[in-house]
């Protein structure tokens, strides 16, 4: 089974994960986790709240996938990175960037993008990806 084969309910359930960066925050130990779980993975507490972390972050590491699994093979290379947002690390696809421009430490921001494939169930799939934060020319000079 692949994500293309995901059932309609599974897509619907994952909407917060796929379409918005909603994380869990533990009220006991204060740590964030993503995607949200029913108990804090760090301290086990169930006293949690959901928060949106739709902020920019720093690219901590990345990989360029040439040998993409299954039906995604056609859209290789796929660039995937680990983005650090306020200490929370999100694993996500990167977009609007070429392999040769990649560098750890750059600022990236979330953006909702259509995925390249549709399912045969008629679902158009979107997902959060990250793209480099564009530095305005003036700022670049300053």
């Amino acid at each position, binding site marked *: 089974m692949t994500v293309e084969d995901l059932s309609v309910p599974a897509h619907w359930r994952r909407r917060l994960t796929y379409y918005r960066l909603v994380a869990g925050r533990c009220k006991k130990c204060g740590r964030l986790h993503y995607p949200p779980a029913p108990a804090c993975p760090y301290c086990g507490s169930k006293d949690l709240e959901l928060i949106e972390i739709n902020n920019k972050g720093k690219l901590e*590491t990345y990989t360029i*996938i040439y040998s993409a699994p299954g039906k995604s093979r056609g859209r290789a290379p796929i660039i995937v990175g*680990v983005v650090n947002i306020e200490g929370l690390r999100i*694993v*996500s*696809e990167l977009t609007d960037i070429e*392999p040769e421009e990649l560098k750890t430490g750059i600022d990236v921001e979330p953006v909702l993008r259509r995925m390249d494939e549709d399912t045969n169930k008629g679902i158009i799939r979107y*997902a959060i990806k990250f793209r480099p934060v564009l530095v305005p020319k003036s700022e670049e000079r300053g």
Partner: protein
Amino acid sequence: MSNAVVTGTGILRVRRQYSKSLKDLAAEAAFKALDESGLDSVDYVVVSSSLSYTEIGQLGLSGHISNYIGLTGVRSIAVEDGEASGLAAVEVATYLIKSGVADNVLVIGVDKLTEFTSGRVYEDLQKINDSELFLLHKIGHAGMAGLLMRMYMNRYNIPRDELSYWPALMHSYAKENPNAMLRFAIDPLAVKKSLSIADPITLLDSFPLGDGAAALVISNSEVSRGEGLAKIKACASSTGFTNPFSQDDPLKIGSLISAYQKLIEMTGLKISDIDVMEIHDSFTITAMMILESLGLSKEGEAAKDVANGKYSKDSRPAINLSGGLKARGHPIGATGVYMIAELSRQLGGVFEGVSLNNASKALAIQINGFGSSSRLVLLERR
């Protein structure tokens, strides 16, 4: 409390076995192990398989296999823990002996990775990681390894070629092991030049896709009376983070550190006592992470240690004399059973490949993915 002893082993060479079904491979390995133990039957069959659930799709596998190999009427169970399934099966078998329920347990590890195209198999292998998290972005098993390998190289300023000594060492051992899939030597410099899978991971950093089966007969030491290759001294395991990047340090395998700590508490083990290990080198970076998580190498120094010969066969512990996942092969649910069969033969002085004199303690280590679960099994010479 009863002790568990390995009294029979059956190992099939890892390779593409188009003409044999999952059950045929299981039968072949099982018959070898039973022959070696001198038993016709057992009390319990424990089956370890993982990828086959998505690839072949047979449910209730242990009953179907038991019937197929002529053991109808025995008790049986199948266990699953992704890449760590094999050691999970050994753990269950050991506790069946210790609880007094069984005197002889047949453990069969089997998986087929060449039943479909490699694209399909890589797709299915993604399910080792948390599918909620990683299916959408097609990160895959190698992609996760790529993210970790670049983090490692960046943080510790490790040149690519320094990491290439691991695969070369593994191939040098596999060359001597008749049951290894990749029985040829490679030059460390060839690793960088091979096909890029998930940059910086190349084909030679990763395990080959092969079919395999291995089996063990594990017996109550009171019943086996001095027979057998090795004692199972202890099993330890721990769960960890589904996503390694949720850990404070993604390059440390939390579940492995936790399982290792449990093993030390159980046995008073010191790593310097270990003569020979099999570790779960699904990728070069996984091997480095394991060596550093156990404290065998200091942080950021595992690659250099390997390059400098610290883990050669003359050092202690000697590591992955089988050739490892890298070159012996990694038939997912079967691999841990291979490890215990190989290490038992090593301790019993009958291992077919590069072998040690007088090895008395051996340790097998498995990890699912990059740490959702880790398992260790400690063996001692009989």
